[in-house]
């Protein structure tokens, strides 16, 4: 297996992009990444999108996006793993380069979510859950994570305030990120007084609906060195795992087993352990998700994720900064693009381009991107050289 590097990243504006169609949103990000990499050609591409079919009625976007990127006839594939589609695109690109099949690979993610109304968007997102045995009964994604939250509070004494602190921290980080969709600070009180969505989760516990795309260019480390890239951003670990799709089928609904397994695989491949990680971007689709996930990544003991936030261990100045970009909460969550956007934050940190949110001496970074209620998960570990 060849060592793989990230040589270019691109992310355009995120938000309610009324004037832009899906193809344009993606092509803009892809061009930024290609230009950032300084390459003239790409050999293949992987695009993560959760539900272009339900959001804009467009399938077959592998072809459409290669076409509009002016890259036909390169091989192009759309990959889907719900909210982990972007992370999956990264892994497919990684495998493609590592195996020697391709030299320069574009990985990206895109979601155009605002062409449908709130009800339809809720439905589209709900398709990541079990249609026949969860959605049939009227549960929503906030509802499923609320079930996790309620159980976590019951089992471990996690408090409502601790969950709010996740949103407060991520908005504080996001306020330092010009690319964030909602780059403003909020208070615990703001969260606790926001509209109830699914008890105990409120509006400010939930990531937003976002149009957006993100892209990155991968190549062998050898080639990156030839191209005189500095720093060299290496993908040193890639873990992918699955679990029960339906939340109620899990033995412990508060334990994201796929995240724990994907992390175990990524740690093993990279020969790193939780203590080696300098900062991490995790899938905080809801505040409770960040708490559960930081436990499953081995950053904190089981049940201690809430207390860790309260103690400030995950803040920018903390022991292990989590979601320096602002996370899904503040930066936005164009579902399919999220997994790639996490990687962009890693590259920005390594390049020391993170401005006010820069983590000092950041050498090892990690991303965790999760589908549904944890039915799939991708964990990647990166090293700066």
């Amino acid at each position: 297996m060849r060592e793989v590097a990230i040589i270019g990243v691109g992310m355009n504006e995120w938000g309610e992009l009324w004037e832009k169609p899906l193809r344009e949103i993606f092509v803009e990000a892809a061009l930024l990444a290609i230009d950032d990499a300084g390459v003239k050609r790409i050999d293949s591409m992987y695009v993560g999108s959760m539900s272009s079919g339900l959001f804009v009625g467009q399938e077959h976007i592998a072809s459409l996006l290669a076409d509009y990127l002016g890259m036909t006839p390169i091989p192009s594939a759309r990959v889907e793993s719900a909210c982990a589609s972007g992370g999956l695109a990264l892994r497919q690109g990684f495998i493609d380069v590592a195996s020697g099949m391709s030299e320069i690979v574009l990985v990206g993610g895109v979601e155009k979510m605002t062409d449908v109304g709130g009800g339809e968007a809720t439905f589209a997102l709900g398709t990541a859950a079990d249609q026949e045995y969860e959605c049939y009964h009227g549960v929503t994604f906030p509802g499923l994570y609320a079930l996790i939250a309620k159980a976590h509070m019951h089992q471990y004494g996690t408090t409502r305030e601790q969950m709010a602190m996740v949103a407060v921290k991520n908005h504080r980080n996001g306020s330092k990120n010009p690319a964030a969709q909602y780059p403003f600070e909020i208070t615990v009180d703001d969260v606790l007084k926001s509209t109830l969505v699914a008890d105990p989760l409120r509006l400010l516990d939930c990531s937003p609906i976002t149009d957006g795309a993100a892209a990155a260019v991968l190549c062998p480390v050898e080639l990156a060195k030839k191209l005189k890239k500095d720093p060299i951003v290496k993908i040193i670990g890639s873990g992918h795992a699955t679990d029960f799709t339906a939340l109620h089928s899990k033995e412990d609904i508060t334990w994201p087993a796929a995240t724990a397994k994907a992390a175990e695989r990524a740690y093993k491949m990279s020969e790193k352990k939780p203590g080696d990680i300098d900062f991490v971007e995790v899938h905080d689709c809801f505040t409770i998700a960040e708490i559960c996930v930081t436990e499953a990544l081995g950053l904190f003991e089981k049940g201690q994720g809430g207390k860790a936030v309260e103690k400030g261990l995950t803040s920018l100045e903390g022991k292990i900064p989590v979601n320096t970009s602002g996370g899904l909460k503040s930066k936005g969550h164009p579902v399919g693009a999220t997994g790639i956007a996490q990687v962009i934050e890693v590259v920005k940190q390594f390049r020391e381009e993170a401005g006010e949110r820069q983590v000092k001496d950041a050498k090892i970074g990690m991303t965790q991107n999760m589908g549904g209620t944890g039915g799939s998960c991708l964990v990647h570990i990166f090293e700066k050289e």
Partner: protein
Amino acid sequence: MLTPQRYWREIPHRYRLEAGRCKKCGYVAFPPRLVCPRCKNREFESVKLKDEGEIVSYTIIRVPPEQFTDQAPYVIGIIELDSEVKILAQIVDCDFDDLAIGKKAKIELRKIRTEGESGIICYGYKGILLE
């Protein structure tokens, strides 16, 4: 949109809680599966789940999917039946303040939703809060 055929094929599980019990390790799969997720065995016997269980977690849906607009706010819970299998269902006939993890719930049949003004009526299970 739930077409009649898609609704119809799930009837045994939705009306009667028919499940499969792994003949090798005893894992109860609801709905029935072809492969046991625990021991990979492929032989199951048909069993009917008990109609009473314990609430594992619950939430109150305030912002519902489109087809459930008229029902909101409503309770969704995970209920463990027979201490071996969990299901997700609405929990009905309760004051929200009486809900608690660990309380008992009984299964009854409910009209889950209707497909528009003239489509099929979809039935399935719900939990009734006991106590």
